[in-house]
């Protein structure tokens, strides 16, 4: 109880909990789940974009996309490391991912169907991620918060690059403009879903906020994202596919429609367009790489080296 009180005091003065500090089991479990899910999202998130590296329509965009997906792998690395400070290995977490026991952000269960999606993912998906993640830079668990600071910096860079791709395409041909609009139409609603279910259906929010793991509610963040995106869409020259989207003078904010929450829950349950594909892809890469990881361990063991790389 004294430990618990000291722990809560650290939280309350917005200070950081460090790996060697005492923490309640439920806090640890919540954090492992959240950090792992975040790490998995980075790694699974490599796929929808990675599939277009080979088809990038200019060498400059190919370099940008390759570097971006590489950054995502890097984010995954930091986050798995943060999770490891809580006592779980990357191996365990990867196995939880490919067996379906742990989740990742549902947005990556939607397919990428044109190169415009590379821009839209940067603008809307990374944009939504940033809204979610900026508050996490002040999250109570030290390693997670520090990882988030680094990640958020890179994410904003990605977001600008994505928006810049869309801007460039909007200056291009009619086909390119149509491609951008079509892409925004597909990604708008799933992006809103990235903030999670409405507050009244989000049972864990209260506890997470008390622990300083979460600092804003889903609906607060969603509102912030919409208010941010509307002028950007206007500047870009695209329509957001929500007939209920309108400025509310009184609230000083936009009113907007709700995503299809039934669809959201179906995708979370595993029935989205790409769930099976994404996990199968990850599993194949992991399984195909087993002999390499074993060889590196064997080499390190008997040659006293540090592994191959």
């Amino acid at each position, binding site marked *: 109880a004294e430990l618990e009180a000291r722990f809560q005091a650290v939280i309350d003065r917005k200070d950081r909990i460090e790996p060697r500090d005492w923490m309640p089991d439920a806090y640890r479990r919540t954090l492992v789940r959240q950090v792992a899910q975040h790490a998995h999202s980075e*790694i699974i998130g*490599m*796929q929808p974009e*990675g599939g277009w*590296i*080979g*088809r*990038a*329509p*200019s*060498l*400059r*965009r*190919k*370099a940008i996309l*390759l*570097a971006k*997906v*590489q950054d995502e*792998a*890097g984010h*995954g*690395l930091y986050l*798995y490391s943060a999770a490891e400070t809580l006592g779980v290995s990357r191996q365990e977490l990867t196995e939880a991912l490919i067996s379906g026991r742990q989740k990742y952000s549902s947005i990556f269960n939607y397919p990428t169907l044109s*190169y415009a999606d590379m821009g839209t993912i940067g603008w809307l998906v990374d944009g939504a991620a940033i809204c979610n993640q900026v508050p996490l830079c002040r999250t109570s668990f030290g390693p997670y918060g520090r990882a988030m600071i680094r990640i958020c910096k890179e994410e904003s860079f990605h977001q600008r690059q994505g928006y810049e*791709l869309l801007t*460039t*395409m909007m*200056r*291009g*041909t009619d*086909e*390119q403009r149509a491609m951008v609009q079509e892409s925004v139409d597909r990604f708008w609603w799933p992006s809103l879903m990235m903030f999670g279910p409405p507050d009244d259906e989000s049972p864990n929010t209260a506890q997470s906020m008390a622990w300083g793991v979460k600092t804003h509610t889903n609906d607060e963040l969603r509102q912030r994202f919409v208010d941010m995106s509307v002028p950007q869409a206007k500047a870009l020259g695209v329509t957001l596919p929500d007939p209920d989207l309108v400025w509310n003078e009184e609230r000083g904010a936009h009113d907007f429609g709700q995503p299809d929450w039934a669809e959201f829950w179906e995708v979370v349950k595993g029935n989205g367009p790409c769930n099976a594909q994404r996990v199968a*892809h990850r599993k*194949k*890469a992991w399984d*195909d*790489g*087993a*002999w*390499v*990881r*074993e*060889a*590196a361990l*064997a*080499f390190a063991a*008997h*040659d006293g*080296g540090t*592994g*191959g*790389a």
Partner: protein
Amino acid sequence: PATLATYCLMLGDDALVLSQRLGEWCSNAPDLEEDIALSNIALDLLGQARLLLARAAAADPSQVPALPDGSPVPDEDRLAFFRDARQFRNVRLAEVPNGDFAQTVVRILLFSSWRLALLDRLSDPLTRSRDAVLAAVAAKGVKELTYHRDFAGRWFLTLARGTEESRRRLLAGLDELWPYWAELFETHDIERAAALAGVGVDPAGVAADVEAVLDQVLMASGVDRPVLPPVVGGHDDPGHHEHAAHQGRDGVHTEALAELLAEMQVVARAHPRGQW
């Protein structure tokens, strides 16, 4: 200038095509560290390709494919996305389809050992290319390729001495790629002319050095040099009945290159007036 341009295309296509192959590893590598490392190598090679294609275009604009009037597609992209397989000048080692991680390690080792020697000559004060741009590109590339070779060399050793399985796979990868090794040191007429003009390097001239480096890696790994002969055949030079081993340099490739380009070029070609 046409010689310089074609020479730059050769070196640029080598980098571009291998970069494309390495990019296929993205999200498929054995672990995150290798995923990042392979992307890094792909990015370095892509950077070299861009500079070399741009240099080629500047040296001889007539080699840049024409597009509809007013197309905003820059020269490097015209060269990358609007040439057919027959017009690509890369060595075939760069285009062979990806196998497993061991085959990729072998490919990077062979490719970077060779290319490092070329770029080293192109940038070394004593043997530097008379083309200042090419010399500068090469100087930047030397640092990158040193890292690539180290990466591949360390993994070559690790796989050779890791497990039976890893050694078996490594040797299979080496056997698969070895028949494309000799081609790297065949002197193409353009390379000979570029070397004579002092802008390029005759690859035959670096063979001894490169072989020595490779032998070191093989010896440290306890791996014998394969005894497989080079791939022959398929030249289309009328009446020219010697073995024409510099096939990729002549634009005669494996079946895999057209398939690689089909993917690489699909979006760009669908939008010849596109801006990206």
